[in-house]
């Protein structure tokens, strides 16, 4: 009788133990499945986000191309795409308010109705130094017709050196301290000098990356002076 009781207890313990094993197994498998499904969902979400940020490279059709598109290759070597620039021609120039080295605020909107040459430069940029006297000449020659150069410095602090450099060069147009937001708005200005010629209607007419000849600068200025304010 006692042996039967002991045997029954042993069977009961074994059943409980097996039940526990099954429960832990189920828990383990559930955990694995849950983590697998969650990881899959995360990957799908990441893939969707990546696809949403996908930028299509559209061939530019020269001056008639869609403004704002980036072209990987272009037949026109002077086109913005061929120079590594975002094609902003025909678009309103991105507005900005920046400070001069002495802290005075200057906005693009302050020059509404004028023909403007926005010139990105830096004190460490030798070609920028070379074109600076040409820009000074242009400012002298065409300011009376409603033209101005706005020089945006891409220098790092301290900005006192920007002021010193500009004074030493005899700069006669406003020099502003650039920031990442403005560079980004103009398509991520990287190489210097980079210039945007803005018509009286506020739209970008010509973009150039790198040093161009004085005569080309003058030709571009004449183009923007010929535009009309809306």
């Amino acid at each position, binding site marked *: 009788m006692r042996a039967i009781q002991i045997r029954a207890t042993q069977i009961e313990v074994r059943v409980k133990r*097996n039940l526990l094993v099954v429960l832990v197994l189920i828990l383990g498998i559930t955990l694995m499945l849950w*983590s697998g499904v969650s990881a899959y969902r995360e990957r799908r979400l990441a893939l969707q986000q990546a696809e949403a940020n996908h930028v299509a490279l559209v061939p530019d059709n020269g001056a008639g191309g869609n403004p704002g598109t980036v072209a990987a290759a272009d037949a026109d070597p002077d086109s913005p795409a061929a120079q590594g620039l975002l094609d902003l021609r025909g678009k309103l120039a991105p507005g900005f308010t920046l400070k001069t080295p002495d802290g005075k605020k200057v906005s693009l909107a302050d020059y509404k109705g004028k023909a403007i040459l926005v010139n990105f430069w830096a004190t460490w940029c030798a070609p920028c130094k070379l074109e600076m006297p040409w820009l000074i000449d242009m400012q002298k020659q065409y300011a009376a017709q409603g033209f101005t150069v706005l020089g945006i410095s891409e220098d790092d602090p301290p900005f006192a050196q920007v002021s010193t450099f500009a004074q030493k060069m005899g700069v006669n147009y406003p020099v502003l301290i650039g920031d990442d937001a403005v560079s980004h708005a103009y398509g991520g200005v990287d190489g210097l000098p980079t210039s945007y010629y803005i018509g009286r209607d506020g739209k970008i007419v010509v973009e150039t990356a790198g*040093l161009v000849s004085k005569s080309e600068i003058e030709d571009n200025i004449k183009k923007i002076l010929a535009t009309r304010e809306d």
Partner: protein
Amino acid sequence: MLRRSLLIPILLCCCALPLLASQSQWQPRDKGMDFGSDNAHGEKQWVQMESPQDWTLPAGHPQIVVLNFQVDDGLHVNSHTPHSPYLIPTTLTLDAPAGVHVTKMQYPQAKESNFHSTSKDTLSIYTGAFPIQIHMQAKPGVYSMQGRLRYQACDNQMRICNPPRTLLFTLRVTAK
């Protein structure tokens, strides 16, 4: 018996945990894929280091480690001693740990280049491969040090300049 039967679920849980851990690693990596908003990662470099990162030196004696750098074709960088204070010199810095004493950085002789046909200015530059000699002495030990090459590159037609960059690298020195 009990231990043996519990082994399977324990193993299963051990398998599930790494999966959970891998799931949590996904998030920061994906956040890094923020297209167009952050160019701090993977910034384009125009100079590369072509020397090995691992060096074995005799301990306690003055040694010269020569690091070779290569400027991309068609470009140049300012030398360590450019002619204008506004130009950014090529400068190598090493965070030498205790036990390593860097006594001197020796830069190569620069080339003189005519800046532009319309200018009388000349530039002091490095093009192609340029070596920098690091004079150092180390006590016995294994050291890892962070190196930084600060430079600013322009094209050889003097038409366009790229923004200044810092090339980061790690140098591992075993002194014995």
